[in-house]
């Protein structure tokens, strides 16, 4: 479809314009109707609170702590999930054993493990990292395994024909062929890691840090402006992490973008 420059301009400007429009309406409604800031603060006062929290460093501190936890939890899940997924894909025995456990544990909502983990690990760092890593582990291990299993038979045969031995086929063909699936698993894993870290910071946390803690503590004292400010920062953080991950994916596996098979 051919688009006129005018249509293109509208397409670029309208989304931003809609955001501005919503903010303006929000601001005006709150002011004219005199809505209490506890219920719905005006965008301008949220911005003021956000600015203050950035200037005094509380936002950076909580955001930094949360980011650190997310990356530690994610790294643990990624390393263990990919490792087990690869082993399951390559060894029938490992698959048989692991499959029983995965079938039993995967459907379990991982947040239901929170009471148990609090008993075992206490309410410190270990609990938050473990709950997020355990949750992210499952999508990663399953995607890795199915990527290995679904590796193109044609490519494997071609490699055999060109003289590759079993080990070479595994490392030079099957694992690269599984990359798109592994990366998709990592994206899913990152999504649940973010959710679980923030949730664990809200529930049963004793360290009084992190975006989840910031949200719940501001909410409890009805500092609604702070709640909104924290939500805004969380949304931006999530978007930034997704963008970063897509960028890494393109660096790691540039062929996926133009693999038109």
């Amino acid at each position, binding site marked *: 479809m051919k688009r006129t420059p005018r249509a293109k301009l509208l397409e670029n400007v309208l989304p931003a314009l809609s955001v501005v429009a919503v903010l303006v309406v929000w601001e005006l409604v709150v002011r004219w109707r005199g809505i209490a800031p506890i219920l719905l603060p005006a965008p301008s006062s949220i911005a003021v609170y956000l600015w203050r929290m950035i200037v005094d460093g509380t936002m950076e501190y909580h955001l930094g702590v949360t980011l650190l936890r997310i990356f530690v939890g994610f790294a643990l899940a990624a390393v263990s999930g990919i490792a087990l997924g690869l082993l399951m894909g390559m060894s029938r025995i490992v698959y048989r054993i692991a499959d029983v456990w995965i079938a039993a544990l995967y459907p379990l909502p991982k947040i239901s493990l929170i009471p148990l983990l609090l008993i075992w690990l206490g309410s410190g760092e270990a609990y938050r990292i473990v709950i997020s890593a355990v949750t992210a582990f499952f999508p990663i291990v399953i995607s890795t395994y199915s990527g290995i299993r679904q590796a193109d038979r044609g490519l494997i045969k071609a490699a055999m*024909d060109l*003289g590759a031995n079993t080990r070479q086929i595994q490392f030079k063909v099957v694992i690269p062929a599984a990359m798109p699936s592994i990366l998709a698993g990592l994206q899913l894993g990152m999504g649940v890691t973010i959710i679980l870290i923030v949730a664990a910071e809200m529930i049963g946390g004793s360290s009084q840090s992190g975006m989840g803690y910031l949200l719940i503590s501001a909410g409890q004292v009805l500092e609604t402006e702070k709640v909104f400010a924290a939500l805004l920062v969380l949304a931006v953080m999530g978007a930034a992490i997704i963008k970063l991950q897509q960028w890494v994916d393109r660096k790691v596996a540039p062929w996926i973008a133009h693999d038109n098979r």
Partner: protein
Amino acid sequence: MDVIVDGVTQIWGEASTQVVALDRFSHHFRSGRLSCLLGPSGCGKSTLIQIVGGLEPATQGSVGIHAPGRPQDARPLGADSVMVWQNLNLFPWRSVIDNVAFGLEMQGLGRDERYARARALIGSVGLRGFERHLPGQLSGGMRQRVALARALIMERPILLMDEPFAALDAQTKIVMQEELLKIFDQTHKTVLFVTHAIEEAILLGDEVVVMTARPGRVKEVIAINLPRPRSLELVNSPEFGALFDRTFHLIREEVSAAMAQQDAMASAQS
């Protein structure tokens, strides 16, 4: 090297749902000749060259590779042949040069040596300057050349080609056919070329092995005694026309038989 296929039968599936893909296929493919296997789709021609290439075990029968002055079965089946696949099977994550050099890499050859050889071959198939491109960035014809180079670098005496040009557009196909003729005239490999295009089979082949509809058998072997080197102008000669007619009549019966089979299968399923 001669390829002697003796009574090869291939049966897929379990007892109740058995499909006989090949039924006692026997033929002597002579050394240094280009043999075309022509047949309707589903006649087992792809299966046959995979069996010859040692990539599928045959249910029954045997394939012997005979080289002068070498005891039979000195090397495992597949060690003397290399395949060019219908869907190419290029490794999408490997650059052109790493695709071409794949076989040498598997042999443990050092990077410099395998790149030098791959570069020479990439140049000879007209892809100089595209060494670092990924297959996904190339056109169909260029990908086809990569697949050819990846096979040729193995320097194996038998070349197995499974409808390699079927997916190409008409012009690219003509160019690739002429290229293959040139390579064949220079290297004199033993070539088994699977196709369902009559014109292609006659233009390229020293002989055309016409196969029956499933189960695939040899229906007739047509010798193509047209002079080499050949080019596309040959298609307009009366000899070519006569061979085309003869082959067409043979294959027409088999195509109708194959279509009837497919109809029967479709109605059995519905």
